[in-house]
């Protein structure tokens, strides 16, 4: 799976949990999931679970902790696959 494809899929996973929908219109690798998209900490747990299902990977708490931006999430998926 290419980086662009993973990026699009990650953004699709994030979409239902975003509380700042207009921030999605300019989403990029540096977009902060919590700060810019305003995904709250409880929903971030759901995002991690959905990423595990969508990409067939297991994400540890430590790995989830390292994800700040959309680009971090994409890099994590590419590293785990």
């Amino acid at each position, binding site marked *: 799976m290419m980086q662009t494809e993973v990026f699009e899929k990650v953004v699709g996973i994030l979409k239902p949990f975003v509380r700042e929908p207009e921030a999605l219109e300019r989403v990029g690798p540096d977009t902060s999931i919590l700060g810019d998209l305003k995904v709250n*900490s409880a929903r971030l747990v759901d995002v991690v679970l959905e990423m595990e299902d969508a990409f067939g990977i297991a994400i540890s708490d430590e790995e*989830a902790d390292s994800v700040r931006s959309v680009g971090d999430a994409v890099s994590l998926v590419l590293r785990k696959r």
Partner: protein
Amino acid sequence: MIVGNDVVDLDDPEARGAARRDRFVRRILRPAERRAVEASSDPDAALWARFAAKEAAYKAAVRLHGGAPSAPAAYEVAEDLAWVRLHALRLHLVVETPAPRASGRPAFVHAVAFSGDWDDRPRFAAGPHRGDPGADARSLLAESAAASLGCDPSRLRIVRDPIAGSWDGFGPPRLHLDGLPLPAPVSLSHHGRFVAYAHGAVAQRRRHV
């Protein structure tokens, strides 16, 4: 003193039924915490009380150590909700719930985690917002701190400094009086219909006001 707080609206769609979502529960709670939730007459309220406690402890812990883990399972909550612990850091815990309504359950849970003496526990409160959760939470905090200081709330500001690498690019909120920082730790939270604040003692500056 360090302090952190977190409020959860129990009627919010994302909060309802969460205790029945097994993977979600396993991801955020430790085994003993899961047993407490399963044994509760209101599993959702019990789950979110523990989640809020962990989130409050995280907000407090990052003041000591910027790299404190944010994973809820890293934090251990006492069965009686008296404390919350991250490794060697054990914090007092208060979980505030309003009286149950006709539905039999409270409207929200508000957790406050703090270090230091119990007798010096922070001031805190939660309530419905008036339309702008962020501004309303700051306003309630300023009113409470101003009452402690005996000054007008307009002299207080809550500021957050940019900090690269933090969860949202900013550090914890800090209280300023007339543009100068006060030593009191503060914490803010909002979720759904509710906002909440907690702050440590600010009265030591009173004679300067």
